[in-house]
């Protein structure tokens, strides 16, 4: 029995052991590098957050949330800003999510694979990388002037919806793709139509991924300054949009959609560039609260995802 000389090292038990222990070391090294990078990222976020909280500590009072902007730093608050940001996010989510999910379903489940859908796909992916100011300019021409929405919450919400649409589409497609083919085939095999398969199986099972995409999109939208400054967000506004809830039937009002607004990042930007250093504390506090709002949105998404995942039993 002759042994191929090239195979010799693999047959020598000592050499195999040495090779194995070397590979195990490499394995550990990779784990350590990965862990360090991750911890470094978390540490940067933590330092940033702690720094903001420290700088803004004296501003974390109830008044800060219930006061309008003012020329006096200690009297200035973020009422108009956080209400504006919240309402814009509501409009953005309501517009971007149904359209984005529908587009993703069409592209994944219905669209034939041809050059036309290939072009759409490339465009969607590229749109995710378009600078946000471009969306702002588009929205200024389209929503503000063409549709005559003016400098309103509706215009801002639609602008940010456009901005996050590609993110929602891409994330939804990923999660639709992760539903095993066998599930679809089983349902088709039992005579379900394509729509039945989609609504009863594909959608429910991919809800977790869809929500993740939605939150990623909204987290990006909440911090955007450039596009909403372009469409004409205000810096000083000492009144709130019309309340969405009314005391008489039908209890909901949409007047707020047409109201002027300001948003958290704009308020921050304005405070950072003020001459009086006391405003820096306000800016830091507003930054910490904005970060808090984003983290809270993420937490809600994780919770909803957990609830949905628990219900799935294949």
């Amino acid at each position: 029995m002759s042994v191929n000389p090239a195979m010799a090292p693999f047959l020598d038990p000592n050499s195999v052991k040495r090779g194995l222990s070397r590979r195990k070391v490499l394995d550990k090294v990779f784990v350590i590098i990965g862990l360090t990078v991750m911890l470094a990222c978390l540490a940067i976020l933590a330092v940033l957050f702690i720094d903001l909280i420290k700088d803004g500590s004296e501003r974390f009072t109830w008044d800060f949330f219930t006061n309008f902007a003012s020329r006096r730093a200690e009297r200035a608050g973020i009422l108009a800003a956080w209400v504006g940001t919240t309402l814009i996010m509501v409009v953005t989510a309501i517009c971007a999510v149904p359209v984005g999910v529908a587009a993703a379903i069409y592209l994944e489940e219905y669209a034939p694979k041809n050059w036309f859908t290939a072009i759409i796909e490339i465009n969607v992916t590229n749109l995710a990388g378009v600078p946000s100011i471009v969306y702002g300019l588009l929205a200024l021409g389209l929503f503000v002037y063409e549709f005559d929405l003016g400098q309103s919450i509706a215009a801002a919400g639609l602008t940010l919806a456009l901005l996050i649409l590609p993110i929602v589409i891409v994330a939804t497609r990923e999660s639709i793709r992760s539903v095993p083919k066998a599930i679809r085939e089983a349902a088709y095999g039992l005579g379900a139509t394509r729509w039945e398969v989609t609504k009863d199986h594909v959608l429910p099972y991919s809800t977790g991924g869809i929500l993740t995409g939605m939150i990623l999109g909204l987290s990006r939208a909440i911090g955007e300054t450039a596009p909403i400054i372009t469409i004409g967000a205000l810096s000083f506004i000492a009144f709130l949009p019309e309340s969405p809830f009314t005391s008489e039937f039908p209890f909901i009002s949409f007047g707020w959609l047409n109201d002027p607004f300001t948003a958290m990042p704009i308020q921050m930007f304005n405070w950072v560039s003020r001459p009086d250093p006391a405003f820096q504390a306000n800016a830091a506090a507003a930054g910490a609260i904005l970060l808090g709002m984003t983290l809270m949105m993420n937490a809600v998404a994780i919770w909803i995802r957990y609830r949905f995942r628990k219900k799935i039993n294949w």
Partner: protein
Amino acid sequence: MKDWQTCARSEVSRRLTITGFKFMKFWNIFGSAAMLMALQAGVAPQAASAQSTIKLDGSSTVFPIAEAVAEEFQISKRGKVRVTVGIAGTGGGFKRFCRGETDVSNASRPILKEEMEACRKAGIKYLELPVAFDALTVVVNPANTWVKALTVADLKKMWEPSAQGRVSRWNQIRPEWPAEPLTLFGPGADSGTFDYFTEAVNGKSKASRGDFAASEDDNVIVQGVENNKNALGYFGYAYYISNKDRVRAVPVVNKSGKAVMPSIEAVNDGSYEPLSRPLFIYVSEPAAQRAEVREFINFYLTEGSELAKEVGYVPLPKEAYQLALKHFKEKKLGTVFGGVPEVGATIDELLAREGKL
């Protein structure tokens, strides 16, 4: 056979749709709410609000004054009138103003020819009212012991376009100064402060060397000068007042050869020149017909003096406010600059001139 099929199918689909059903309900509600909203937004564009709103937009330099006046005015009206202030910049503000979108435009420079043209085309007439002064302040590091005063010629040597890449040491400005590197900080090219400084120092608006640390945020300039012994920078007076202990202001030699520190008195008596500039508001004529806008402008020109001082600007002399108010009441339309940038005009001179649309 058929029964068995239906039975099996319904059983399987029941089990598989337990989650799906609830899910669909969620999406249905979501979708119909969205449709309802789209409908509403379509039916009622720009619903007239019950309260009247006065809309201001424009220069971010004038913003602190506008904000202070808007704040106090709303308090004095007990919320019956709403005032909003934006910061689209002087140019951006005029664009909106000449489209008739705003009632008042804040400006850190007079209206330019193209902007006058745009307003004329849209049929928007306007009143030009000075509201305060700003004194551009040249600052150095507190540890800088050699600079006692600067002439406009010194400043020109540092900032003119041909200084780019060539003038890089203090002794190139004056031989008696040390051979230390000269590090320059200034506002970015989009700022009205930059426009005015270059006009006053280099003789042409926007003509400047490009190799200096530019920032749209004046606080960055404060920081830069504070941390570098050999630095020099310029910005609005308000930033100097708020940061007196971090940077040192340099007296600037005026036309009559006197070195003058920027101060409220020096701006008012006209001796701090050429670096003091007036700030304006432009009121559109249709808006000026409205009672609440008239009241607002009245408030601006009577209380504005105290408020401007509070936020770090130099108020006009009392008589100037009274004269401006008189012009407003008499509807003196147009600009007194004719659309050309100008340096060094005193406030009395400006208020005595005839306006042009």
